[in-house]
């Protein structure tokens, strides 16, 4: 009995991998209702680091370990994953879940680890004065909402007076994030906002789309994730909603979301803060060192798609931040605090992107102590169902900082007051 108990205890305790050089845990989800979106992201994230390890021997000569931990998009499992990996010298977390992000913000701040949440998480973390350890550049949810409205304004000749815009959102912290911004924009631009929540996991949306059919909004914006996206696009097709008036945030615009609706999804629009497709020079190296070497993560069907590119984007930014930290400190085995400083002094230029084999893939970023939010720019992509590919439908559009900055200041001030955080960078 005692022996069994000891054995059990040992197994429970030895969850952490051996201490290694650079550890970037991947809190991924390859199971559950969010798996269709979680898998390509996790694959892109892992493949990029595999390429760095195989091609360059890691970053600055240090091998990067990417231990994966399955969260199933569940906050309790997320906590378990965080606790089981942080002891191994984890430098950065990228949980790809707004719920888990909210939980980890206080924890990483206490533990001095960086939380990097590109395009998700807590929007007001863009204010580095309050959120020292959280970075969400290049764009956040509020930027996304503002950019979509700007694009719509462009199509409507600059005025949205009397128009109706519906927001179909995942009824969670993630989906609710843009509401405040859209309400401000509704006041400013004079449109009417209809809020339509969809409960987790979103497989049943008949009533929501019935409401859309009845209210006839001029535009529909979707903040969805997982199976919810595909279902919503299918329902929109069913009620013959004009697809070019249907916009998805970057989390609602992957191949997996539009392909189930077939031809009907043609013309669906989505925004993205990075390019997509496998035409970038970096894919030659990925092919040589990762795919052809049989080291690809997952089943190898994802390279080049939107979420794979996004996983790769996150991996690229993290590796650049580590590189920045190495350059600043002069040694390769950087620790979590140095990597945090690396994130804060990251200067990603066009020239550097070209060097990395990703010319024009993303916008330059210049982070500062106060600015953890980046440029706040994104592009509109439109789905071509016949060619099965996303085509750029706009140039880079930047968010309306006049609306968003005060909101960020207000929300982060509330957080600072609640948690008695003194402002930094002054």
């Amino acid at each position, binding site marked *: 009995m005692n022996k069994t108990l000891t054995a*059990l205890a040992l*197994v*429970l*305790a*030895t*969850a*952490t991998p051996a201490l290694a050089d650079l550890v970037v845990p991947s809190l*991924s989800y*390859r*199971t559950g209702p969010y*798996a269709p979106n979680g*898998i390509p992201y996790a694959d892109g994230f892992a493949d990029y680091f595999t390429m760095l390890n195989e091609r360059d021997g890691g970053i600055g000569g240090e091998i990067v370990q990417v231990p*994966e*931990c*399955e969260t*199933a998009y*569940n*906050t*309790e499992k997320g*906590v*378990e994953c965080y*606790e*089981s990996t*942080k*002891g191994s010298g984890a430098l950065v977390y990228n949980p790809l879940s*707004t*719920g888990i992000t*909210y*939980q980890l*913000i*206080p*924890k990483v*701040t*206490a533990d001095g680890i960086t939380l990097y949440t590109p395009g998700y998480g*807590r*929007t*007001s973390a863009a204010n580095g004065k309050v959120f020292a350890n959280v970075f969400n550049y290049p764009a956040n949810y509020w930027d996304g909402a503002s950019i979509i409205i700007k694009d719509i304004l462009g199509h409507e000749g600059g005025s949205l007076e009397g128009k109706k815009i519906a927001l179909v959102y995942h*009824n*969670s*912290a*993630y989906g*609710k*994030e843009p*509401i*405040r911004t859209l309400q401000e924009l509704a006041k400013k631009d004079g449109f009417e906002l209809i809020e339509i*929540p969809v*409960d*987790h996991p979103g497989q049943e949306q008949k009533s929501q789309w019935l409401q859309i059919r009845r209210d006839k909004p001029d535009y529909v914006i979707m903040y969805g994730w997982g199976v919810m996206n595909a279902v919503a696009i299918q329902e929109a097709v069913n009620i013959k909603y004009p697809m070019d008036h249907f916009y998805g945030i970057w989390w609602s615009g992957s191949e997996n979301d539009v392909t189930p609706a077939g031809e009907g999804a043609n013309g669906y629009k989505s925004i993205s803060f990075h390019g997509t497709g496998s035409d970038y020079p970096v894919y030659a190296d990925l092919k040589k060192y990762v795919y052809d070497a049989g080291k690809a993560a997952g089943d190898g069907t994802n390279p080049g798609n939107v979420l794979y590119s996004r996983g790769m984007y996150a991996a690229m930014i993290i590796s650049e931040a580590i590189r920045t930290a190495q350059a600043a400190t002069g040694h390769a085995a950087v620790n979590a605090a140095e990597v945090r400083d690396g994130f804060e002094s990251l200067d990603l230029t066009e020239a550097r992107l070209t060097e990395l084999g990703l010319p024009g893939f993303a916008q330059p970023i210049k982070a500062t102590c106060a600015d953890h939010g980046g440029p706040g720019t994104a592009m509109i992509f439109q789905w071509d169902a016949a060619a099965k590919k996303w085509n750029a439908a706009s140039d880079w559009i930047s968010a309306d900082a006049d609306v968003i900055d005060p*909101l960020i200041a207000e*929300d982060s001030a*509330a957080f600072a007051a*609640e*948690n*008695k955080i003194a402002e930094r960078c002054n």
Partner: protein
Amino acid sequence: MLYREAGDFKTTYAADSQTFPIRFDRFAYWSLLVVAFLVVPFVINDYWANAVFVPFLIYAIAALGLNILTGYCGQVSLGTGGFMAVGAYACYKLMTAFPEVSILIHVLLAGGVTAAVGVVFGLPSLRIKGFYLAVATLAAQFFLVWLFNKVPWFYNYSASGQISAPERSVLGHAVTGAQTTAPAKYLFCLAILFALAWLARNLTRGTVGRKWMAIRDMDIAAEIIGVNPLTTKLSAFAISSFYIGVAGALFFSVYLGAVEVGEAFGIQKSFLILFMIIIGGLGSIFGSFAGAAFMVLLPVFLKNVLVGHLGWATDLAAHVELMIVGALIVIFLIAEPHGMAQLWRLAKEKLRLWPFPH
């Protein structure tokens, strides 16, 4: 040989009716308490606290609560997740409205608020029974989650609808917020669990518990012998909801620190806790602990074996883990429909006779 009544003489009524009539059991109980209170806090680290002990302790409180209602009083409830949400949101509102009051008082008050809500949703139990009552409590589950999503007052008008626990301390040690140390978290939950389990044990073997069991076994007969169904059923709902509310408050403030209602307190949570008491054993205090341990520890254990030791892919391990847990639940219930508590009881019977079973 060691495990026996012989020679353990009881000379008072109190000694005769004590919880652990066998000396060996008492010894085991006291040594468990000593280890839990005096040894574990010194060796516990963040991983053990956050991934293993704190969730186990909190789920044990919730399972105790549901066991009072379903196991002892026979009222099936699928509203556990909703009631936990009431506890969590009550705790959040109290914490932010009265920051100077101790968190311990807030947790208990959150339990009180949940008890009141539980009584309201328990009223239909006077008219409807069994599956119909289960459906009524299911309505409570969905209504409460919807309410906390819909009314911004409950989440202090935050942009995302998330509630986050600010830092609060007990006796100078933070128990909520990021600065909380593993032992503080653990001891806070353990102390509350110990007090509540002790209370539950004594309630269930006193007048109140006997009334509950009378109603559970046959309500008409119970009414004929003078048990008032109104007060009995409502007291079961109130006390059960108090426990579940305390569990919800701890779940939010100590364990997770930030929750969103649909994800943390959805219908899955109600089922999870119902599974705990069914697997652990209905109408048993030990069963609540065993069930909570089974449902909390087994997935973590399997994950560590499959991913950590065998090096399987995380998705494969996650799927296999679901299958193993599911299969074990079915096997357990076929082998012993009365749950782990019954297995434990049988084991003890056999131990008493050992090594001369005939």
